[in-house]
């Protein structure tokens, strides 16, 4: 039985999800670079040295061994392809691409291979594989100053959500990180789990001990309000909640929808909310062109036009690469002040 006060970090919650599913199903394997660390050094008393960027795989090798917890050489294209083949032949691989920026070197395996196999083969093959990857800047006023720059700070989920056949989930709390990860592993098609670097260590919350799923393809209303709908993705949900608190102090009641799955998108929950509040601001950490923010805004505009009291507003990161300097990075990502300003503009 779970104790109601048990708190885990976002990274620990994912670790627990992997552990429980590996216990439940011997076909689940995990692989990636330094998901364990110190590979092959057990004879020196060394193992489990790393555990991925947010330590989400730490300890797994001790319980499940090197046959199912596979440290790979630096070879994303090769091992992502290997996961596709393994998924077609009876395994449920969970692949870690250390940072989403690195999908550049294995994009073919994700967008042409994993995403399309089921369709191309007339539905005759299933592809139960998961890609876990860390995204986002660390830089906001709570961090030590960002500093991973243009090739290690991107969000990039829009270029994954863009691909038919690929499910993409973006957890925002320890609770839904665990539930979405389990749901992703149990799904019979390819699912990408986007894990925000900053949340990985900073987000803590109650997580039940047992296995549970958070449904893929469902948004969650995380704060009720009547004046405006704020739509958040991943860390931006926290930015929306922060903005909602500020707005409440000024008498504006914001509803906050946590998207959780960006493809397939639960339009219904978002649109129903906007029909009640008559205003909508979408907050997205990705860059604006061909973004989730504008995609959601367009869908809301189309389906709820008659209910809107103001044009839907999409707030994204700057339409630039991610800069290194902390002073620049701080202005790069959306923050609560920008959201509050957008709402005030809408309400007039």
């Amino acid at each position, binding site marked *: 039985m779970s104790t109601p006060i048990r708190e885990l970090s976002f990274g620990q919650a994912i670790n627990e999800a992997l552990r429980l599913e590996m216990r439940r199903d011997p076909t689940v394997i995990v692989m990636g670079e*330094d998901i364990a*660390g110190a590979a092959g050094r057990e004879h020196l008393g060394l193992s489990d040295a*790393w555990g991925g960027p947010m330590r989400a795989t730490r300890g797994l090798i001790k319980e499940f061994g090197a046959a199912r917890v596979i440290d790979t050489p630096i070879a994303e294209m090769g091992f992502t392809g290997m996961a596709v083949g393994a998924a077609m032949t009876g395994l449920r691989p969970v692949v870690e691409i250390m940072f989403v920026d690195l999908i*550049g*070197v294995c994009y073919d395996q994700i967008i042409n291979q994993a995403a399309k196999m089921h369709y191309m083969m007339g539905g005759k093959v299933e592809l139960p594989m998961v890609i876990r990857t860390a995204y986002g800047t660390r830089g906001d006023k709570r961090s030590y100053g960002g500093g*991973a720059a243009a090739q290690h700070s991107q969000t990039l989920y829009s270029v994954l959500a863009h691909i038919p056949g690929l499910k993409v989930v973006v957890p925002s709390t320890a609770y839904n990180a665990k539930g979405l990860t389990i749901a992703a592993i149990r799904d019979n098609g390819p699912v990408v789990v986007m894990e925000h670097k900053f949340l990985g260590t900073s987000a803590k919350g109650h997580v039940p001990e047992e296995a549970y799923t958070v449904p893929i393809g469902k948004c969650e209303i995380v704060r009720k309000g009547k004046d405006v709908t704020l739509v958040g993705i991943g860390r931006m949900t926290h930015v929306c909640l922060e903005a909602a608190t500020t707005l409440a102090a000024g008498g504006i009641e914001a509803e906050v929808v946590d998207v959780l799955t960006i493809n397939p998108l639960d339009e219904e929950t978002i649109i129903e909310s906007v029909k009640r509040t008559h205003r909508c601001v979408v907050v997205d950490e990705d860059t604006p062109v061909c973004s989730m923010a504008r995609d959601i805004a367009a869908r809301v505009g189309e389906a709820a036009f008659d209910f809107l009291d103001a044009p839907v507003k999409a707030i994204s990161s700057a339409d630039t*690469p991610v800069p290194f300097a902390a002073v*620049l990075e701080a202005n790069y990502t959306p923050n609560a002040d920008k959201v509050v300003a957008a709402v005030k503009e809408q309400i007039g």
Partner: protein
Amino acid sequence: MKTTSKPTAEKLAWMYERMSLIRQFEERLKWLVETGVPVGAVHYYIGQEAVAAGVCAALNADDWIASNHRGHGHCIAKGVEVAPMMAELFGKVTGTNRGKGGSMHITDITKGILGVNPIVGASVGHALGAALSAKVRQTTQVAAAFFGEGGAGIGITHECMNMASIWKLPVIFVCENNGYAQATPVEYASSTAKISDRAAGYNMPGVNVDGQDPVAVWEAAEAAVKRARAGEGPSFIEAKTYRYFGHHQGDDTLRYRLKEEEQAARDRDCLKQFRAKMEKSGPLKLADLDAIDAQNKKLLDDAVEFAKSSPLPGPEELYTDVYVQAKGGAQ
């Protein structure tokens, strides 16, 4: 691939000067990190100085190098000034990259550096491109690609070795085998005991040298450069070396390697060995080397001062240089 030529006293002094400057730069940076200066993610080059210095000692100013995430040493060896490098790490507008790149992109194209690049393997392609450029433009320039033994395993490196060989491009593959890719030991991740054995598969000479000895590295690089300039094609150099500290700041190395191994590597320190050799048989005197160290210390004092006193980028800098503008500002 052995050359008979010996390095001149001048060459030796140059190599020591660069190794000492790299070491001092990294030690200063480490101190800054440990005293809380936010410089983003950094990967110290300490321990590997002889590789960068030895290779760059064989290159001309107009030759190119392409570097990886552990790139400060490569930059300094190829002649980037330490003041704008330090300013870059402080995120200042006077930095080599105007504060937009930081440690993992720190570079200076005017010194023949095609970039410090933290996507493992990516820059190997760029070195190959520079070599192609030299061939098409009929110059005698060469390009050297620095990558780790981890980078030796990624697809692009293999694709590039094959292309370099079929087109006899003037490129040198410099694999710095420091034993670890993050926490992954080389003996686990490499199918061959020597990375340099793979060169045979691509029909190019492959040598394995002591990366703690700048002269050994220089000799191998000299031979490779000669071959490249003569139009005979690529070479592969594996330099066995060691990184003394974590993969990046904050990484605890003792989770994946033993203290005794670290000590044994430090006993073979490139600077220490070089000094001992000079003391024993010259031609440089210890006093000369001390003078070099002192001069480098002054350079770094000035560099930190420059970095601290330089202005931060203004908010508009976020939006500049996203697209290449036509000369004269049109478009």
